[in-house]
């Protein structure tokens, strides 16, 4: 818990800066738009319709879609800017709707009076309409504040630091303390912000100068704190090396291994972007927003190169992937770590015995009476289509779920088969059997360290340090490290430190 709390100032200030900025910009856009809608009712259907449509997009999707959009206009696709734009869009509707409602709810007699005493339209707006609509508008800002603070936790997968870092990594590594800290901090922040804005509004309405000055001062202090810590990060050591991780245990451990290796060999500062979406990480690396992360040869082969998975030898596939990355994408492969983490179909050992299944070919016959669980991407991936085509798999039901929940579902017999990862520590821990891919449909998944063109060009010493890791981790070692985090509750950084401290890292050449 104390280790989690140590991360709090950084995550909290980033979360706060992002939320406050998004809320401020949203209000700056939505209130004038609301006034315009009020003046010209013809604008109401298109503008409110657009804001509502944005609102119906799930927060995670809206954030994710910013990455290619930003990349398309040549801007940095991951980090705080795309998150800010997405959150601003997300925060528009409540403020816009309440501004329109608040202005429409004003007694027509007061408009008549305002015009009758000689106010210009502008004076009427500032002296009568806005003050009277203020409570309703502020209500919209408060709703928006709660939404934005909540949704900002989803900025983590697109590379913007937020309290979501706790939640994503905590869920993936079964660290409930981290999840708890993240949720409590986000909820506290949302409620605190809501109450501050309420105090501000009550102060203005009751003309209690002391109230609203207190609220403004507190909001200002929060903004200043957030901006200052963001500024500190930006002005830190000359462009730290950015290391990415996808949201599962192995990736957190490997990101720590890479970071500690670079730090130990070159002393260069590193900066981690944990819990990135799968394609977000690759796109960010290709765009140079990310410097290093670990991906898997089969993933690049199938989802990036769109090649079919028909039996290709492990070494041949690795060579082709490497060639493609260098020639087509300018990405350097700093080496294969020495293990494969492939998709594998796994079952409880007792269930497999009961059904008499040990190979996927045998599973196919029993599939119509069974249910399968997979991670979010599995059923959309080329490997799944290839499995279905090769073995004629047709399950009674297929359920996509969070990888961390998938194993629990199998343990509790809610599904019969899952798409496991071959290095997952839970395969051994839960006494699962991995079904033999007898027709060699699933391609090889060598873990490979990918480095951006920029890193290769500007930090050759870091690249050299990474190359030293080639062939140093075999499947057993990776499984042990994953289990240390998942089952023993140790932190990825501890596990990585222990691994690097081993004499000569038990150097081993990759199997061939």
């Amino acid at each position, binding site marked *: 818990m104390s280790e989690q709390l140590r991360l709090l100032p950084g995550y909290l200030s980033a979360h706060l800066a992002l939320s406050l900025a998004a809320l401020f910009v949203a209000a700056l856009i939505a209130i004038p738009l609301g006034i315009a809608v009020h003046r010209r009712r013809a604008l109401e259907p298109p503008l409110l319709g657009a804001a509502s449509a944005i609102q119906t997009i799930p927060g995670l999707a809206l954030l994710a879609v910013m990455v290619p959009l930003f990349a398309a206009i040549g801007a940095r696709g991951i980090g705080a800017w795309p998150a800010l734009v997405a959150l601003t869009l997300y925060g528009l509707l409540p403020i816009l709707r309440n501004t329109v409602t608040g202005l429409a709810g004003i*007694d027509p*007699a*007061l408009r*008549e*009076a*305002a*015009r*009758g*005493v*000689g*106010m*210009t339209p502008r*004076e009427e707006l500032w*002296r*009568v309409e806005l*003050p*009277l609509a203020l409570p309703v508008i502020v209500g919209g800002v408060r709703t928006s504040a709660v939404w934005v603070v909540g949704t900002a936790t989803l900025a983590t997968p697109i590379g913007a630091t937020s309290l979501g870092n706790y939640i994503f990594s905590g869920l993936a590594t079964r660290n409930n303390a981290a999840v708890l800290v993240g949720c409590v901090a986000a909820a506290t922040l949302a409620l605190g912000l809501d109450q501050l804005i309420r105090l501000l509004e009550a102060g203005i*309405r009751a003309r209690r100068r002391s109230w609203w000055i207190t609220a403004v001062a507190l909001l200002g202090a929060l903004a200043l704190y957030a901006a200052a810590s963001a500024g500190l990060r930006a002005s830190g050591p000359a462009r730290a090396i950015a290391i990415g991780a996808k949201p599962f245990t192995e990736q957190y451990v490997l990101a720590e291994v890479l970071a500690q290796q670079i730090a130990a060999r070159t002393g260069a500062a590193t900066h981690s972007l944990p819990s990135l979406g799968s394609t977000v990480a690759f796109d960010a690396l290709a765009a140079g927003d990310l410097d290093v992360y670990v991906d898997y040869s089969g993933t690049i082969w199938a989802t990036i190169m769109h090649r079919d998975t028909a039996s290709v030898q492990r070494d041949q596939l690795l060579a082709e992937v490497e060639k493609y990355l260098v020639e087509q994408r300018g990405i350097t492969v700093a080496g294969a770590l020495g293990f494969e983490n492939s998709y594998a179909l796994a079952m409880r050992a007792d269930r497999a015995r009961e059904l008499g299944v040990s190979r996927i070919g045998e599973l196919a016959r029993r599939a119509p009476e069974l249910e399968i669980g997979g991670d979010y991407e599995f059923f959309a991936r080329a490997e799944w289509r290839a499995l279905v085509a090769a073995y004629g798999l047709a399950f009674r039901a297929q359920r996509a779920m969070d990888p961390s929940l998938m194993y629990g579902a199998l343990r509790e017999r809610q599904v019969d088969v899952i798409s496991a990862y071959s290095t997952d520590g839970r395969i051994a821990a839960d006494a699962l059997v991995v079904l033999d891919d007898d027709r060699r449909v699933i391609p090889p998944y060598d873990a490979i360290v990918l480095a951006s063109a920029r890193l290769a060009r500007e930090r050759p010493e870091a690249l050299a340090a990474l190359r030293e890791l080639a062939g140093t981790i075999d499947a057993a070692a990776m499984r042990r490290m994953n289990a240390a985090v998942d089952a023993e509750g140790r932190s990825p950084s501890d596990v990585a430190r222990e691994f690097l401290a081993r004499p000569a890292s038990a150097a081993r050449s990759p199997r061939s």
Partner: protein
Amino acid sequence: MIELRSLTRRYAERVAVDDLSLSIESGELLVLVGGSGSGKTTTLRLVNRLIEPTSGSVWIDGADTRAEAAPLLRRRIGYCFQQVGLFPHMTVGENVAITPTLLGWSAAQITARVDELLGLVALDPSAYRDRRPSALSGGEAQRVGLARALAARPLLMLLDEPFGALDPLTRENLQQEFASIRRELGLTAIFVTHDMAEALLLGDRIAVLHTGRLVQVGTPAELLRAPADERVAQLLRTPRRQAEALDALLGRRSDS
């Protein structure tokens, strides 16, 4: 002097005010009467340009009111209406001060003027200045409304059934007080009402409108003596008819 020259206001379906010409002398109070839909409220709102005429014009002291921006014109014309429309987020004092504030008077001038006006409408300034409109009775609110309309020493007052929503006792009180304030300040005013008794009591002259057209204009005595048509005659007889009916009713009671 106020001149309405051939004022016409047309809507898609109907003509609300039809070629209306009238003039009001300085210091005079002209009452507009007529049934609903006769165009009296529209006429009033055409004068301070809350509604723009389809054709025709309004002249104040020889100047065309179209020559200046409507909000500026309205600052020189007091406007009082039945719903009052006091701003609920301002105090009574701030409501009264609104037009002088828009005109950029100094704070000292405004404070003095607010107290003077509250006194004029018989509200103790120290007790009422800082109240919120929500804490006022209907009669008090209309007094504040009147004070607000008078605040910037207008050339002309427009009153649209200002006492229409008040209870009879309060209404009578306010009518009398308004009559005396008017005399004291020498106000020029156009007053809309559908209450003939009020019209006869307050008006120097009465203009009778029907379907947007002027039927007759004259002093109460002139109208009583020579009504232009049966409708005017009927209208003028209403207060007397009501009084006689009441007399009869009360007389029978006291006889028995």
